[in-house]
């Protein structure tokens, strides 16, 4: 089943499936029902990071350097942890400014510079074309391997083959067609390609499945699991060196450099920028992708080492290239289906990379290289008001074909040369040169156009000298002396020991020198002069991207423009009909119901410029808008003033937010206070009504007895005396009630007189017992005393304390059974005060009543039948008195076994300290 027609049919069928998926994705996107709006699809599309360099190449590298292939995937994992900040900011900037490529990003940041955009484009193209060539090579090798089945013959590229007979030429053409159809179907102001992303995500899925399938086959089919394969590492002396992190002797520096390099590549490779930033549907997807994408990388690498070892063991001495093990292992086992699946997986890895990379590069070439040149021709740019959208599309399509053909050309020229094999990391190092200008631009306001230009140019030159040219030399295209003796025979200029720096692997060496030059020039030149108007404006737009400020650009535009001019201008690049639709929609959004704007204000100019930026790049858009509008140049002072104002406005608005939050809190507090007041008012009403009620009871009896005495003059003397006695006692009760109510009111309002002095509590207790001895005698009750001699002094009001004791003692007596009652008074010394307890053996107090008795006018017992024996104010007053002197009063009781009232009072010294602290505070 591995004959040429089958292989070709399956390949074309698979590409057809991709076409269908992409077509469907685009159709759904047009209907507004995106099929890629999911974090999983987003993460899968990021996996375009894994090219054939991963799919076939990882095993090849693992066969030489053991686990040394892995740092290239650890770097992206670490960077994704920071993606939450870095990528989020990039996405915000890109969406707010309709940026479509990494060249546009850098050009826009440093004042919309054509020169900078062009330089970035050139670096990207030079760095990436060989990488595209590598994909073509991988596909063509896998095809010729597959077609040699059942033999395993390494592809021989030394024999010259005509272009017309070369399979990879047709592969390049098919890929160009695919890219054109889905990359440049129409011009979009946002340059998003939903169908393409859907196809890429599918490809990522296919390559993962294919790799896991072959990994599982080798590990569990060919061998008996991981342990079985790895056992050979220990037993086979030729493999023993692979079980180390640095078998190639590059040192841990090389390992570290690879992590750094791949971390930057995953952000700044044009294809990664395209899928992760430009094609991002929803920034919330970043969250899940942050771990899903690393997980994908982990999964696709799990079987790399087993396959590499399995291949080394299986093909020992047969001259089979380790880069082909993924395919040749299943072929050698006659697993035709699996081999075909692997081939499709490799095809997925190659096509995914080529398509996205080519789209990204073609956008750059069109917007940042060709358009600026075209616009220099005044005739084309301004005078001729014809529709340029067709031209624009043609440029992009042309760029796509050109890039792929360049890739093919490089592949034909390089063949098996070293320059192609090592290109993966060489490409990474090229795009890593974008890092200082990108990251610096997002977080440092001081970066200038000059600085970015100098940094990029310096980094690029050093990269070319230390990494690209040496790879040419190793391929035999440059004399060997260049490497061994240095440029012009100057030893200090040896490209891989520049200035005598040795001991590094070539990647670390290049990374160090190129970053040294790049960052040094970027920072150094930026610091030579302050940023100019355009740079300062864009610095604000980029650095403050995560703060919610209005469009800064609009605030910085002064001038006059006609709506019709702007619309015509946009129409020339996007097509007149689309321009019309966009302008009407914009006018409606701005509140012009008829869709007609009369005046072109700064916002409209900004809007038109951002539409153009999506189509032709921000630098060209700036030039075009300036050509139809009469603009007043702003001085740097004015710009800084406006930016300051904007930031002040932000400060004010934050201040305002804070104030309004405080206001809300204050309102809440007020509400609570109000509720509390109302509650107090209700309590007061309750007290008033209960006081009135309590007063009425004795008054009623007094009146009733008085009326009896008045109405019956012949009443017996004994009765009279009894009634008069009752009247007197009720009147006394009334007086007591009024006195206590007033007393309580005084205490509660804080107007009571307190005569605090140091006193001996034992003396107070004895005095109180003496005063109540008559009561005890009447009830026939015993009083037991347990009072220590000379207790420490306490600070309190003597009369008030006697009042408390009298209240407790009389309460105790009140509930005693006649004859058998017993009251026990104990004075106890605690750690920081004294405790007095008054225990009786009366009926006790139910648990639910133990708190109630301390409330005003609450008397426990059956009030319906028994006449209340007190005022209901004694205990509340006592409790307040005790609390006033820093103590506590409470009751413990078991119903049927009596009640014990206890109160504590702190020592005089403790109390004084507390007062001192309170006063001091």
């Amino acid at each position, binding site marked *: 089943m591995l004959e040429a027609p089958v292989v070709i049919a399956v390949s074309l069928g698979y590409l057809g499936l991709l076409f269908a998926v992409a077509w469907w994705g685009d159709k759904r996107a047009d209907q507004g029902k995106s099929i890629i709006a999911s974090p999983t699809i987003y993460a899968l599309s990021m996996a375009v990071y894994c090219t054939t360099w991963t799919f076939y190449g990882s095993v090849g590298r693992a066969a030489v350097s053991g686990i040394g292939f892995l740092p290239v995937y650890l770097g992206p994992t670490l960077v994704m942890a920071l993606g939450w900040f870095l990528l989020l900011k990039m996405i915000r900037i890109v969406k707010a400014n309709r940026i479509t490529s990494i060249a546009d990003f850098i050009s826009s940041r440093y004042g919309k510079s054509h020169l900078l955009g062009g330089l970035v484009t050139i670096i990207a193209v030079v760095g990436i074309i060989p990488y595209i060539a590598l994909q073509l090579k991988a596909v063509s090798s896998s095809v010729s391997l597959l077609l040699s089945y059942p033999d395993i013959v390494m592809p021989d590229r030394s024999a010259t083959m005509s272009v017309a007979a070369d399979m990879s030429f047709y592969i390049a053409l098919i890929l160009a067609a695919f890219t054109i159809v889905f990359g440049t179907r129409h011009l979009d102001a946002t340059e998003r390609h939903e169908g393409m992303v859907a196809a890429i995500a599918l490809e990522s899925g296919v390559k993962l499945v294919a790799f896991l399938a072959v990994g599982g086959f080798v590990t569990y089919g060919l061998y008996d699991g991981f342990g079985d394969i790895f056992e050979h590492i220990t037993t086979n002396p030729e493999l023993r060196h692979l079980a180390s*992190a640095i078998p190639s002797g590059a040192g841990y520096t090389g390992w570290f450099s690879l992590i750094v390099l791949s971390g930057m590549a995953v952000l700044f490779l044009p294809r990664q920028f395209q899928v992760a930033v430009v094609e991002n549907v929803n920034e919330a997807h970043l969250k899940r992708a942050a771990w899903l994408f690393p997980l994908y990388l982990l999964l696709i690498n799990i079987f790399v080492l087993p396959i590499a070892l399995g291949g080394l063991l299986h093909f020992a001495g047969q001259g089979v290239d380790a880069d082909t093990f993924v395919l040749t292992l299943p072929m050698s086992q006659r697993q035709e289906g699996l081999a075909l699946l692997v081939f499709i997986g490799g095809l997925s890895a190659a096509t995914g990379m080529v398509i996205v990379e080519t789209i990204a590069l073609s956008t750059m070439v069109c917007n940042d290289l060709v358009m600026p040149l075209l616009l220099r021709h005044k005739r084309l740019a301004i005078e001729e008001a014809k529709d340029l959208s067709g031209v624009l599309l043609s440029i992009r399509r042309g760029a796509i074909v050109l890039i792929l053909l360049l890739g093919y050309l490089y592949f034909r020229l390089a063949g098996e040369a070293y320059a192609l094999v090592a290109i993966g990391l060489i490409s990474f190092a090229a795009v890593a040169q974008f890092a200082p200008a990108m990251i610096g631009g997002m977080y440092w306001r001081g970066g200038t156009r000059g600085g970015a230009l100098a940094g990029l140019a310096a980094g690029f030159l050093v990269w070319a000298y230390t990494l690209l040219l040496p790879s040419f030399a190793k391929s035999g295209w440059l004399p060997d002396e260049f490497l061994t003796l240095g440029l012009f025979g100057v030893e200090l200029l040896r490209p891989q020991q520049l200035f005598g720096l040795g001991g590094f692997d070539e990647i670390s060496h290049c990374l160090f020198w190129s970053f040294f030059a790049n960052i040094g020039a970027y920072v150094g030149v930026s610091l030579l002069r302050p940023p100019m108007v355009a740079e300062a404006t864009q610095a604000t737009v980029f650095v403050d991207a995560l703060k919610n400020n209005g469009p800064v650009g609009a605030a910085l535009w002064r001038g006059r423009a006609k709506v019709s001019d702007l619309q015509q201008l946009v129409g020339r690049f996007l097509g007149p009909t689309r321009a019309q639709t966009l302008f009407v929609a914009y006018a409606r959004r701005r509140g012009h119901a008829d869709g007609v704007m009369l005046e072109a204000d700064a916002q409209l100019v900004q809007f038109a410029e951002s539409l153009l930026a999506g189509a032709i790049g921000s630098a060209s858009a700036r030039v075009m808008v300036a050509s139809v509008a009469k603009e007043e140049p702003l001085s740097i002072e004015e710009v800084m003033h406006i930016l300051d104002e904007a930031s002040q406005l932000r400060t004010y608005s934050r201040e305002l937010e804070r104030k309004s939050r405080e206001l809300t809190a204050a309102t809440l507090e007020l509400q609570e206070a109000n509720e509390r007041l109302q509650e107090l008012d209700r309590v007061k009403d309750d007290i008033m009504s209960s006081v009135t009620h309590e007063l009425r009871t004795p008054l009623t009896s007094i009146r009733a007895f008085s009326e009896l005495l008045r109405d019956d003059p012949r009443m017996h003397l004994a009765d009279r005396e009894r009634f008069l006695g009752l009247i007197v006692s009720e009147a006394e009760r009334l007086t007591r009630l009024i006195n206590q109510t007033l007393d309580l009111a005084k205490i509660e309002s804080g107007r009571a007189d307190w005569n605090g002095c140091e006193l001996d509590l034992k003396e107070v207790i004895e005095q109180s017992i003496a005063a109540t001895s008559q009561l005890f005698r009447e009830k026939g009750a015993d009083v037991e005393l347990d009072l220590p001699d000379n207790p420490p002094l306490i600070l309190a009001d003597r009369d008030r304390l006697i009042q408390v004791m009298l209240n407790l003692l009389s309460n105790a007596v009140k509930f005693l059974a006649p004859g058998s009652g017993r009251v026990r008074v104990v004075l106890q010394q605690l750690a920081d005060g004294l405790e007095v307890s008054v225990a009786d053996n009366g009926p006790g107090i139910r648990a639910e009543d133990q708190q109630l008795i301390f409330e005003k006018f609450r008397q426990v017992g059956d009030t319906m039948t028994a006449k209340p024996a007190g005022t209901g104010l004694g205990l509340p007053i006592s409790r307040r008195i005790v609390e006033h002197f820093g103590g506590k009063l409470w009751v413990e009781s078991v119903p049927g076994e009596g009640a014990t009232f206890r109160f504590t009072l702190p020592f005089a010294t403790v109390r004084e300290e507390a007062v001192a602290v309170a006063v001091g505070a």
Partner: protein
Amino acid sequence: MHRRVLAGDRLVAAFLIGCVLFNYPLLSLFDRHTQIFGIPLVFAYVFFAWAAVIAVMAWAVERRFK
């Protein structure tokens, strides 16, 4: 607001711990010719550390806050 800050801090922590776990000198501690469950120690270590960092990242962003 708060939960975002916390998730962000956790991701930064994952980044930092990953930087340490994946590099010299910690890496060199496991770079010796011994085996664990039949797998060379350094292979097992790197993959395990990698999986752990991914797990921490997943936990940081997926955890539902109470």
